[in-house]
């Protein structure tokens, strides 16, 4: 298991998010240690994307605080926040590629903002990221409207990796990918995570991905988060968690059996 270091990469305390009368989060706590792959699961509409947006500072919570590497997000100056944004990469649930830019231009946009590289280097690095996520070189000059749904996911991941950030936020990165590509994505993520010592926060509904990649899992139930290792969480008595990890689908995938090793070793690795 991961050694618990002094300052966690992300710390969320007592988060409250409300939209009108609808309470999405009510005193939610979450801690992500540096260097781990943290999976967030929860039913549709349980507030996973809202949580991610709050951590990224895109959504102002009603109460609670978010600490990134020990520093309060609200306490950062504009300058520090800008610098901080170079330290994380993010993919959004719906891709959110810039529709008027080609794939390679999308990948280069963060580079233009944060790095001063010459055009040839930028092109080469962007192409490397594009190839890395499994897109062909000929896809680099396509516009988002010319991509398939799965290709949009990959291009978004390439953009998230543009600056080689030590922290990655992924919102349903494998939804819309075929199972083979999803498996390839998982192993790419594991490779990168191990070699670059990335911290990854991943929202996903894909049990396979969870069992292959995640060290710990946070489940959003009843507007709060329950966090545990895979083995721990799948033996949690909460009915939703039971249904999720031991339901018909999970059983059919044989996922339950893989929940036994709790050391985060990916299956089939």
């Amino acid at each position, binding site marked *: 298991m991961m050694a618990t270091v002094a300052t966690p990469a992300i710390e969320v305390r007592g988060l409250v998010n409300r939209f009108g009368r609808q309470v999405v989060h009510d005193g939610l706590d979450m801690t992500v240690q540096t260097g781990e792959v943290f999976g967030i699961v929860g039913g549709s509409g349980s507030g996973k994307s809202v949580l991610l947006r709050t951590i990224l500072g895109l959504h102002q919570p009603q109460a609670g605080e978010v600490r990134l590497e020990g520093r309060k997000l609200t306490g950062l100056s504009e300058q520090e926040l800008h610098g901080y944004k*170079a330290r994380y990469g993010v993919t959004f649930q719906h891709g959110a590629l*810039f*529709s*008027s830019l080609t794939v390679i231009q999308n990948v280069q946009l963060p*580079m233009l903002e*944060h*790095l*001063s*590289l*010459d055009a040839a*280097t930028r092109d*080469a*690095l962007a192409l*490397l*990221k594009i*190839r*890395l996520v499994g897109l*062909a*070189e*000929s896809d680099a*000059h396509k*516009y*988002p*409207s*010319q991509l398939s749904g799965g290709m949009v996911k990959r291009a978004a991941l390439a953009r998230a*990796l543009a*600056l*080689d950030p030590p922290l990655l936020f992924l919102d349903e990165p494998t939804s819309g990918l075929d199972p083979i590509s999803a498996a390839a994505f998982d192993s790419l993520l594991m*490779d*990168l995570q*191990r*070699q*670059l010592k990335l911290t990854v926060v991943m929202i996903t509904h894909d049990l396979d991905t969870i069992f292959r990649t995640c060290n710990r899992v946070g489940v959003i139930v009843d507007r709060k988060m329950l966090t545990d290792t895979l083995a721990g969480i799948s033996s949690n008595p909460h009915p939703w968690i039971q249904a999720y990890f031991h339901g018909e689908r999970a059983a059919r995938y044989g996922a339950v059996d893989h929940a036994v090793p709790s050391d985060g070793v990916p299956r089939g690795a």
Partner: protein
Amino acid sequence: MYTRIERSATGLELTLTGAWRAVNLPAIDAELSGIDWDGATLLSVSTREAELLDLSGAWRLRKLLQQVAAAGTRIEWRTPEPELLHLVEKTLAEGGPPVPPTSSESFFQPISALGQRVMVRVEDAKSGLDFIGRVAAMSGAVLTSWRRLRPISVARHVYDTGITAIPIVALIAFLITIIIAYISAEELRQFGAEIYVVDTVTIGVLRELGVLLTAIIVAGRSGSAFAAEIGAMKLNEEVDALRASGVNPIEVLVLPRLSGLVIALPLLTVVADAIGLAAGAVLCKFLLDMSLIQYLTEMKSAIGPTTFWVGVIKAPVFALLIALSACYRGLQVRDSSRELGRLTTVAVVQSIFLVILADAIFAVAFWQLDI
């Protein structure tokens, strides 16, 4: 400092230091270009002292090693070769399909470009006519039932394009009439014919200014809104979803906007006319010391039986032109947000142009008809 070079008996020893990250690439480049490789036969590399080697750093290292190897130098690792280097190697080695060449340059480029532009215009005109035809056919079909007229949707568009535009239309009609009246008063005063200011204002506002001003404001306000609303729906695949569920986008998107505007624009024109005439009265009272009775009497004699109608009759035609070109451009949006912006601009420019063109045609026609 990102590198340290030492010469040993067998060759060069390269030690990576510091953070080999994307941010530092320019500095790394500068440092590497200063190194004199000097035909060494062996380069032994160590990454032990490197703080960090990320993907970009690994890519740069690979490029360096390739260069050195190409010069005939053997490469040896003192530390285990970084795994990232393998990843970069593997990624770039898997030859993807070659990039298809972009369209070949032609010798007659300027000529073919001109031809292409002409063809684009021709196609545009054809599909514009096609669109008008579809709208006409669809309005015929819709007229058969009350429900398909979508009265609620039409009412919403009357409100959005008409009622909410009243303040701005009134303000601009007031100001423009004041300007016209003031200028003509200055000129006519020289002949002692100030009374004819009333005729200028009355005829000018009722026949031309009221309706033209209103149409131009509405083209800017609602034309852009129509194009942007429909265009955003196109980008979002909402229009495709409508089609797929068997709903005709022309029926639910275009016709309600068109009917809404055809109702709203004449009403707005009447408002603009009234405000314009009132502005004339105010100016005559304060600048020319004319009494209200005098103004009304003169106005009554200036207004012919058709003066008012000649103006108002143009409003539905202008409304048609604005709504048609805005919806047409909106439906043309494809692929990207830039297209949305471009076509919204085109919609506004085109509808204002069409309104003015139609006004000119009306002027000639009315003159021929002696109205």
